[in-house]
């Protein structure tokens, strides 16, 4: 017999009452772990998207939210392709590149993917990420210069060759697939694929990027427009703008040129993301406060009830010579075990929730974060100990005589 065994046996003797407190702490910790986990990967994904986005100005439909754009690249509203011509023919300085895009949802084997129409060369010049060794990225300096396509001057890497051909030759029946799409559908270059009633040939499988682009299929803009049946319309224009010109009011000038569209810069995107992150952090804190209140109250209530129910047993222990310190330890060890179990299981459940729900609610892959284990256990144990301290102290200070029924 030792204290741990004594406490363990008692816990299982009254497991139904214990279950309520355990559930309160388990669910609380699970929710906070899940929020933290999803937030972390959401921030990481957006950061990766921002890094990947060669463009630093976006032209979107007036009603579109940035959240829509970065999560699915699709809005219900479109604007005419003619905007591209307006921009191209304008005398605006500092427009390095324009990437018009139109996206449609397509269903393949019960899964929904995004079919994005692109105008090949400009699209690929704007995408730093697909450039392998960075050969398509915007030059770090030389703002205002037209981005070069220097791949042809380098030893031909496999991806570069694939892309180079795509850039030059993407026809109405060719499609590029993101890494996830190819993995899910088992596609290889050369395979045939039917999208919205039209047959396409897979020209290339793009390397994984870790962003929503992995779940996309890319086809020629005009082919996608035909499939959409809405005429020459777009969802977005990505613009590689000159840094100096942007700070000099390029966005306002584009706004003036395209008053019916929403024009945003990366700075605004970052601001929006920072605000989103702050909101998630606040949400996490609110949940933490709820856990402390609900979980703490539940544990304290359970412990008080437990002390009341066991006062005769406590009296017996005291009659057998137990000091108040032993009684205090009995209840605090129980709280410690409850906190440990709640923290460990809460982390497990929260991680399962985050990993399974993350891709659905945030559209991003979420991986377990072992760094949250000590955090989850620490909060859970601290909460259980603090909530149990006063009930435990009451038990230790019980009048041994008053606890025995015979008196």
């Amino acid at each position, binding site marked *: *017999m*030792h*204290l741990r*065994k*004594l406490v363990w*046996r*008692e816990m*299982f*003797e009254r497991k139904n009452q214990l279950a309520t407190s355990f559930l309160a702490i388990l669910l609380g910790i699970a929710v906070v772990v899940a929020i933290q986990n999803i937030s972390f990967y959401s921030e990481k994904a957006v950061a990766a998207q921002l890094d990947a986005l060669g463009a630093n100005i976006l032209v979107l439909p007036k009603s579109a939210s940035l959240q829509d754009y970065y999560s699915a690249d699709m809005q219900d509203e479109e604007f005419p392709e003619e905007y591209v011509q307006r921009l191209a023919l304008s005398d605006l300085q500092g427009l390095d590149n324009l990437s018009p895009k139109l996206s449609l949802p397509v269903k393949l084997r019960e899964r929904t993917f995004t079919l994005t129409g692109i105008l090949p060369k400009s699209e690929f010049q704007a995408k730093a990420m697909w450039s392998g060794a960075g050969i398509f990225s915007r030059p770090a300096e030389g703002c205002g210069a037209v981005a070069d396509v220097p791949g042809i001057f380098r030893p031909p890497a496999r991806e570069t060759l694939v892309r180079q051909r795509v850039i030059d030759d993407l026809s109405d029946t060719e499609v590029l697939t993101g890494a996830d799409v190819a993995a899910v559908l088992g596609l290889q270059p050369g395979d045939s694929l039917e999208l919205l009633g039209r047959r396409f040939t897979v020209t290339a499988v793009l390397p994984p990027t870790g962003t929503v682009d992995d779940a996309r299929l890319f086809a020629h803009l005009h082919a996608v427009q035909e499939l959409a049946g809405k005429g020459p319309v777009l969802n977005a224009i990505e613009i590689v703008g000159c840094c100096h010109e942007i700070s000099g009011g390029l966005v306002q000038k584009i706004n003036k040129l395209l008053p019916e569209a929403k024009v945003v810069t990366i700075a605004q995107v970052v601001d929006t993301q920072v605000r989103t992150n702050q909101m998630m952090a606040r949400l996490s804190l609110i949940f933490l406060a709820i856990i402390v209140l609900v979980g703490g109250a539940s544990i304290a209530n359970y412990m008080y009830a437990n002390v009341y129910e066991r006062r*005769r*047993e406590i*009296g*017996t*222990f*005291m*009659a*057998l*010579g*137990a*000091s*108040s*310190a*032993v009684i205090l330890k009995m209840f605090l060890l129980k709280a410690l075990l409850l906190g440990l179990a709640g923290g460990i299981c809460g982390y497990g459940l929260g991680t399962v929730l985050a990993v399974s729900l993350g891709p659905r609610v945030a559209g991003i892959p979420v991986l377990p974060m072992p760094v949250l284990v000590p955090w989850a256990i620490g909060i859970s144990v601290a909460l259980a100990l603090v909530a149990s301290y006063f009930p435990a102290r009451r038990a230790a200070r019980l009048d*041994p*005589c008053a606890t*025995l*029924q*015979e*008196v």
Partner: protein
Amino acid sequence: MRLESVSKTYRHNRRTVTALDNASVQIAAGEFVAVVGPSGSGKSTLLLVLGGMLSPTAGKVYLNGHALYDLSPNQRAELRRRQVGFVFQTFNLVPYLTARENVQVPLYLADMKPAAQRERAAALLERVGLGDRLDHKPSELSIGQQQRVALARVLANDPGIILADEPTGNLDPETGQHILDLLEDMNREGRTIVMVTHDPRAAARAKRTLRLQNGRISQE
């Protein structure tokens, strides 16, 4: 053990109830004393005061020369652990522990190693005739067997004084006699027994009887 002019009063429903009224008594080491009296006469209070569990309102209680209530609660707990054993009418076994584990509790409180605890608990249960019920929980034992586990638990730390509150009160006559036999055995080993009882046959087994009436002690 010695009580010197001990009084104990309670407040109950805004009225003062006197459980012990200027009670004085001396119990020598090795005595077997029965305490009798009507319900509410203060018998159980006397036992708890003697065991250091209930501080008197007035008077002094001495145990082996120590003024019991001059000690702190934890010092009294220590004294109980080493020198006093309680037997309760309702046995007060811990329901979620087996017979052997119940007997191990005072041994654990005395810091004995778990292996030694197990061995001693088994020997004590063997002594009270429960060698084949070591791993039974109280709910799996008869009433008489539960009281025997409680007696084995009392003997765990080899106390010099055993305070028994109606030890046969919940038992049939035959089982009660067996428990009294065990108490007599303990007395023969030199232990002091103070037994509160309503049962005249149980009281007759003691060497001396104290009568409590309205909190006052008299000899019989």
